[in-house]
């Protein structure tokens, strides 16, 4: 059987139609969009088309609200730093505990630089408390940044409502929508969201291209200064081939938006139910009723995620884990810890993230291949004896912890 790729929240395959759209921009259309001659103007027109394609997918009111960047991380950093630089009288940033490292690490660094960063906690389902959120807003807050969808669990935050609340208090609102764009309908012109970050490689465009949506009128300070590209808001010669690719990918994502929410969602639910019904002591993490249609994150208790991944990989199945061992850090996923998932479960979390290319046959294969792997590893686990956790049998394993 061909390898089965269920790690689309990590990155996606570039759609062949996207590759095809990009190729001429490496060869005949190699010009610099800023040039006066025909070589440049061809590229300039292609960038305009791409900008309109991105605009359409996220429902931006104006094409000029789209700024191309090199990746989601750059978009995130540009947004937060701009909000602070443009409003020097405001020194506080509000984020959530489950943000991507692109936001979390930036927050840690801002604290070292003397800014104040408040972190909204989440409950055991990964949800924020809107009352707590409201209580954190005051006139010194420069920007709120909350992810639209969580990369590990797929949990959706009520960002439209959060943006309304921030706007009512005159506070800028940014959302890291890297996982959400292309998977759920987004219509920015009907929201109060000021800034939104997206990344190409999560929606079948290549790596190395991203975009920042910047609402017209939102005060802005560029991260990169130099040439007049992107209307002076992001200097540096345009990565024209990748921009064209992102545009095409956004056009395709808009066409397939219903596929995501019917076919992909159906397969995801089938996978999740198939695993949960066959395997004991496992559960789906996050807010399972409000999440991305393609993501299922399952905690398999008493075993460790990297070991599961290695055995899945041996069978040609690719997924990812929140275990410490897969990240090179010593701690399991900050998302799982923020939700209070116990260590013995957090280390055994496996994220399956689908795309429109997954088939029912693949999902059936994963449903039948996974239970023996879980059983095999539980047999090795000191927390497990016979058919259940050893603690319930009174022979509890309680190691001396280092």
């Amino acid at each position, binding site marked *: 059987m061909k390898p089965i790729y269920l790690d689309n929240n990590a990155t996606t395959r570039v759609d062949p139609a996207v590759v095809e759209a990009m190729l001429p921009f490496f060869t005949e259309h190699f010009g610099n969009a800023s040039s006066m001659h025909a070589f440049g103007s061809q590229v300039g027109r292609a960038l305009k088309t791409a900008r309109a394609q991105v605009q359409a997918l996220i429902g931006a009111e104006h094409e000029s609200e789209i700024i191309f960047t090199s990746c989601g991380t750059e978009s995130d950093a540009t947004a937060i730093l701009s909000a602070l630089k443009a409003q020097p009288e405001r020194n506080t940033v509000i984020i959530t505990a489950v943000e991507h490292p692109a936001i979390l690490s930036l927050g840690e660094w801002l604290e070292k630089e003397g800014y104040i960063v408040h972190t909204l906690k989440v409950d055991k389902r990964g949800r924020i408390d809107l009352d707590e959120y409201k209580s954190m807003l005051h006139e010194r807050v420069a920007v709120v940044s909350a992810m639209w969808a969580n990369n590990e669990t797929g949990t959706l935050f009520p960002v439209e409502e959060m943006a309304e609340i921030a706007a009512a208090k005159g506070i800028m609102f940014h959302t890291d929508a890297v996982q959400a764009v292309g998977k759920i309908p987004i219509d920015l012109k009907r929201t109060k969201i000021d800034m939104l970050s997206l990344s190409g490689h999560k929606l079948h465009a290549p790596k190395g291209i991203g975009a920042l949506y910047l609402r017209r009128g939102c005060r802005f300070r560029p991260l990169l200064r130099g040439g007049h590209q992107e209307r002076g808001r992001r200097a540096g010669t345009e990565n024209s081939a990748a921009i064209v690719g992102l545009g095409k990918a956004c056009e395709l994502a808009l066409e397939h938006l219903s596929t995501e929410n019917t076919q992909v969602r159906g397969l995801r639910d089938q996978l999740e139910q198939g695993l949960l019904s066959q395997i004991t002591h496992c559960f789906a993490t996050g807010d399972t009723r409000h999440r991305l249609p393609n993501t299922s994150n399952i905690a398999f208790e*008493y*075993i*460790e*995620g*990297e*070991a599961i991944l*290695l*055995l899945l*990989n*041996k069978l040609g199945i690719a997924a990812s884990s929140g*275990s*410490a*061992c*897969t990240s*090179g*850090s*010593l*701690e*399991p996923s900050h998302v799982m810890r923020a939700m209070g998932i116990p*260590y*013995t479960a*957090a*280390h055994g979390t496996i994220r399956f993230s689908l795309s429109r290319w997954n088939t029912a046959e693949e999902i059936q294969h994963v449903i039948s291949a996974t239970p023996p792997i879980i059983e095999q590893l539980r*047999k*090795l*686990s*000191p*927390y497990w*004896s016979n058919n259940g956790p050893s603690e319930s049998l009174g022979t509890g*394993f*309680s*190691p*001396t*912890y*280092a």
Partner: protein
Amino acid sequence: MWEYSDKVREHFYNPRNSGPLDAANGIGDVGSIQCGDALRLMLKVDPQSEVILDAHFQTFGCGSAIASSSALTEIIKGMTLDEALNVSNQDIADYLDGLPPEKMHCSVMGREALQAAVANYRGEEWSDDHEEGALICKCFAIDAVMIEEVIRANNLTTVQDVTFYTKAGGGCAACHEGIEDILAKVLTEHASDGEAPPPRPAGNTAEAPAPAAKMTLVQKIHKIEEVLESVRPMLQRDHGDVALADVQGKKIYVHLTGACAGCMMEAATLGGIQQKMIEALGELVQVLPASHMPVDV
């Protein structure tokens, strides 16, 4: 994906001696709650000869944790308890044709599990005082807790000092920001105590390190031997030992043997010896493992 050796993969896919051992008379349970690895080592020991007749394991952990548990049981079967206690984490890694440095750090719990199992067999209490922090130096697998302890113990103030004492930062240098952060944290704490960074402690006696009075090489070697003698009991308690290999100018080469060889605390051990040497000799010297000795001088 980690670069695991074929041998690691093989032991992970087909672990030896896994599962409970009913006749076990020595059981060691160890783990690291944060990094998520935990290991139960079960030994069946012959009471007369103290030979390990059988060894089994159960492991909650990643691929290399399972593989190194499997390797450990294979290595120690047939050994006496004292022989088994000399098996180091490095021996386990070598048996598996090496492990990624990040994995040496947290997943190889073999040594701790052995100590715990032997203590259990002998009816002793065993506790592990080895605390782990976030991995800072990926080249030499040195964590934040170790760096912080060494900075405090030796009043270090620069990244170069830290590298000198722990090796951290001596490789690709990408972790220098992390080391600077730890230095800044410790120095800030000192400053908030209302005092400048305290001077290097001069030892318990009022005697300051003898400055200048130049020693002959023989006198110097005598002093060095005295320092080594003073630390040997401490190392022997941990089933290790140290011996002088050579003195070349300001470089003192030593053989670390037994449990000290390849121990992940090696750098800290050498750092501690070095500090004593500097105090005893009254000059800056460097203590290095004999393996660092130039081949041809």
